[in-house]
C-alpha cells in the first residue's frame, strides 16, 4: 500500500505541466489527494485585477482528481480523464495560494468517480468545485 502512495507522489511530481504550474502534492492516500499551487504572475487571467486564470485552476483540479484515483486501494495502476466538469464560484484572491482537495468516492473495475473543491485562504468559501469520471487502467 505504501509503495503505491509513494509511486503516486513521484508520478505527480514528475509531470512536466504540474511542475510548470508549481503544483505541490501535500497529502495523498486512500482515494484522497491534496495539491497546493502558489500565486504566480504568469498564471494571471485578468491583468486588471491580477486574478488567476480559471484554466490554471482547472489544470490543478484535473491533476488532483487523477492523483485521488491512483491512490485508491482498488485502483490497480494509472488513470486518464474521461470527463471533468468545473464550476467557478468566485475569483481566487490575488496573491493567495490555491489548495485543492479531491476524493475518489466510488470506483468500479473500469470507471472511477471523483469530486474536488478548490479554496484560497478563506477556506469556507470555495473558489471552484469539480466532478468527473476517470478510467481505471488494468495492469
Amino acid at each position, binding site marked *: 500500500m505504501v509503495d503505491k502512495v509513494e509511486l503516486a507522489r513521484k508520478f505527480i511530481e514528475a509531470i512536466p505541466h504540474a511542475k510548470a504550474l508549481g503544483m505541490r502534492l501535500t497529502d495523498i492516500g486512500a482515494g484522497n489527494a491534496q495539491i497546493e499551487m502558489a500565486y504566480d504572475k504568469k*498564471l494571471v487571467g485578468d491583468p486588471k485585477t491580477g486574478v488567476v486564470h480559471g484554466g490554471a485552476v482547472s489544470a490543478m483540479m484535473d491533476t488532483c482528481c487523477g492523483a485521488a484515483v491512483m491512490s485508491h486501494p482498488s485502483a490497480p495502476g494509472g488513470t486518464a480523464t474521461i*470527463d471533468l466538469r468545473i464550476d467557478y464560484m468566485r475569483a481566487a484572491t490575488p496573491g493567495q495560494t490555491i489548495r485543492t482537495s479531491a476524493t475518489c468516492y466510488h470506483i468500479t473495475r473500469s470507471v472511477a468517480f471523483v469530486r474536488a473543491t478548490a479554496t484560497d485562504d478563506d477556506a469556507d468559501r470555495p473558489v471552484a468545485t469539480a466532478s468527473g469520471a476517470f478510467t481505471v487502467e488494468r495492469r
Partner: protein
Amino acid sequence: MSRPRPEPIQVVKQRRDAALKALVEGVPYIRFLGIEFERRGDELTALLNFDDKLIGNPFLPAIHGGVTAAFLETTMIITLSWAYLWPDIESGAFDPEKMGAEDLPRLPKTINFTVDYLRSGLPRDAYARATVSRSGRRYASMRVEAWQDNRDKLFAQAAGHFLMPPRDAPDNG
C-alpha cells in the same frame, strides 16, 4: 439613395486584428500556455503551440488534461468576448489603439464547463473552434471542439455557460 463607399480593406483588417490582439495579448496565462488566435472574417481558430511543459503523461507522452481544459476554456471565452465586441469593433466604437490593457471593456466570466476527453492529446500543435449556441442578456452557452492532425478526429470537446458583463442599463427610476 446610394450606399456609402466601403472602407478600404487595409483599414478594416487593421482594426479587426488590433482588436483581437488587445483581447489576447494582455493575458499572461494565454501567453504562458502558448495559445494564439487566427482570424478569417469574424471566425476565430485557436492554436495551442506544443511545448514540453504542456505534457501531463511523460510515458506516452500526452498533453496534460488540465492544459486541454484550459485551452478549450480560453477558446470559448475569447470567441464569446469577440462575438460580444464585434458590433463595436465594426462601428469603430471599440478602438484598441486608444486604450491600454487596463481600459479593456468588461468581458464574460465562466460559470462552468464540461470537458469530454476523446483521445489522448499527442505531443504536437492543437487547434480549436468555439461556437456560441446562445447569447442572452445575462447568460451565454457555448460549445467547442479541438483537434490535432485531422479536423474530423476530435481529441476533446467541451460545453460551457458564461455570465455576460452587466450592460449600462437605462435608468428605470
